[in-house]
């Protein structure tokens, strides 16, 4: 059985499934209980599972993440919601110094399998600090898994996988896609890999890498490229940002010889750099063009009246694709 769900509904469904089947799973955070989350991702769950399993916490992110680590140490599987990704800043010490290292430090004796869910990214006319993309900070931190789904099906399957894997997972939810469309989503449990990228279109001429809310942008740009130039882009949704699915990345560029990477985080030291660096090391002989990044500019995400210009647009991605396919 499947239903058409949007991403918020799919995420709620994943939490519902695991809360029902695994009594170690807890949901906690600011406004996740009575209010059902500011995006309603936890709507109805407290009514169903009670206030001991779906918990409104004080307004303190270090407290939320730090106590989740303690809950995980002692047998639970906490799923902590950070209301918007940048509000994880006060909790970064707990993430960097502890969640990521508990297993390593104790040589496997203690582990911290928690999931930190957070809406991320711009494009929803949010106030300041409601639009950040920080994936490269987490990808640079050994011990963490970092994932970002781009559609309701993946969101549910990946969140279920995240609640089952024995590592801490940073689960990035592209706010802009929360209600951007629906998909057939199976009822009950299913898993989507936390390590595999997905090839969304087959292409010959250029590889186009994206994740989260940039996936639809990449797809539109690829379509446009096909229409305008009759050239085909291979669009790859990375899904897992740490670890990266190197095999899929490399094999695509080995075929196309060209790569464009799209992300909405700032360009400098963003995750696009890592992908470009991988290619510049291991696929350099196949490269037939410069590797282009189309990314958020190296400025703080600006006030919402101009945020669209901060973000990679279809036009900017298309321009990047054209530069690359016309190079040589």
């Amino acid at each position, binding site marked *: 059985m499947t239903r058409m769900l949007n991403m918020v509904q799919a995420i709620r469904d994943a939490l519902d499934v695991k809360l029902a089947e695994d009594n170690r799973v807890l949901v906690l955070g600011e406004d996740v209980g009575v209010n059902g989350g500011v995006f309603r991702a936890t709507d109805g769950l407290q009514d169903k599972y009670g206030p001991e399993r779906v918990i409104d916490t004080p307004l303190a992110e270090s407290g939320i993440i730090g106590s989740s680590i303690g809950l995980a140490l002692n047998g639970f599987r906490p799923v902590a919601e950070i209301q918007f990704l940048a509000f994880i800043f006060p909790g970064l010490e707990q993430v960097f110094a502890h969640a990521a290292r508990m297993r390593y430090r104790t040589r496997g004796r203690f582990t911290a399998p928690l999931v930190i869910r957070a809406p991320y990214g711009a494009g929803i006319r949010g106030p300041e600090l409601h639009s950040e993309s920080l994936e490269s900070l987490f990808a640079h931190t050994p011990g963490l898994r970092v994932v970002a789904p781009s559609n309701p099906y993946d969101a549910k399957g990946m969140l279920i996988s995240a609640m089952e894997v024995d590592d801490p997972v940073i689960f990035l939810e592209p706010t802009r896609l929360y209600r951007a469309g629906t998909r057939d989503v199976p009822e009950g449990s299913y898993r989507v890999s936390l390590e595999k990228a997905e090839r969304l279109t087959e292409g010959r001429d250029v590889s186009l890498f994206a994740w989260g809310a940039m996936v639809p942008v990449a797809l539109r740009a690829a379509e446009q490229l096909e229409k305008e130039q009759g050239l085909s882009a291979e669009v790859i949704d990375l899904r897992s940002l740490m670890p990266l699915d190197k095999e899929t990345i490399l094999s695509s560029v080995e075929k196309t010889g060209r790569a464009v990477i799209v992300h909405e985080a700032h*360009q400098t030291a963003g995750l696009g750099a890592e992908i470009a660096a991988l290619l510049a090391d291991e696929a350099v002989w196949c490269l037939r063009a410069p590797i282009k990044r189309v990314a958020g500019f190296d400025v703080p995400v600006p006030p919402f009246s101009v945020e669209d210009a901060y973000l990679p647009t279809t036009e900017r991605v298309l321009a990047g694709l054209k530069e690359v396919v016309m190079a040589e």
Partner: protein
Amino acid sequence: MLAENELLQHPGFTSAAELTALPALRVVQPDGQANEELLSRVSDEELIAMYQQMLRVRLFDRKCIALQRQGKMGTYAPFEGQEAAQVASAVCLANKDWMFPTYRDHAAAMTRGLPMQTVYRYWMGQMDGFSVPDELNILPPCVPIATHLLHGVGAAWAARLRDEDTVSFCYFGDGATSEGDFHEALNFAGVFHLPVVFFCQNNGFAISVPFARQSASPTIAKRASAYGMDGIRVDGNDAVAVYLACQTAIHKARNGGGPTLIEAVTQRFGAHTTADDPTRYRDQAAMNEEWRRERDAVQRLRLLLTSKGLWDDNREEQWIAKVGNELVNAWEEAVAKPFSEPIEMFDHVYSKMPAHLEEQKKLLAGGGLA
């Protein structure tokens, strides 16, 4: 103003050494009856000015909600219910003082002189909505909860190091008291004995989370003792009580008496923001009823003024008309002003634009890739 020791001896106040769950200081009752002795510390002109400002900001707030509903502004954080707390505190500050507001404290900022137009522009997501006139030391609304308390501490520290008598005044909510930065700020202020006032509007909720879930301590003022500072709990819907408490704390800070934590107990009458639905987490109908009966700060002050013969329907009408014009004019100016250009996003990132931003700026200007 109250003398400092007079304040400390009033039953509503307490020194750090004696803090326990406290009754709050109240001067004016919901029906407008006042403790005349305390009321006499405030002049009629001050009372009228506060009332006018409270009514002005309330009308502004309602206008913003309407504009947001029409799609002309982004998500907006209303403050209706908190007018006394914000206005009666802000009037106590001088231009040279430093004010650190949150996203809900534009009533306070406007009271200190922030142009209405700027506030409109802020909620329209325009870049100049974050600009502050040169003569005012008001920071833009702080979004990450409790972080600005430390900026208040630092600015106060700077004043003390230069032997200036300026004061930092920090606004924050009950939810903010749970963040680590609240603790670190109060601790620094206590240790360095700084001229800062921590002004908490305890409106009982952090979005949907009630105060009892923020803290096992029944009051916020009580926490002052953990930092060796005095705490004051006031009825935040009583403009006169707020005024006296703030004036005293500011005077004390200005004169080397160190920091104070003020808890103004109030209510947010409406939603957390225009994106919020308060009926999900509280009985809004009951709240409305109770609030109108005994919590509405604007009404309370009006009853007082009326009973003292300082205000009447006629003056009310005229004032509303005047503010109505201001609201419309300021809005017209706000939308007449050029909107932010995307290209401005490259300005002010650094004191001097580095090469990579020059490049990115050129690319955006040229419609290029980036």
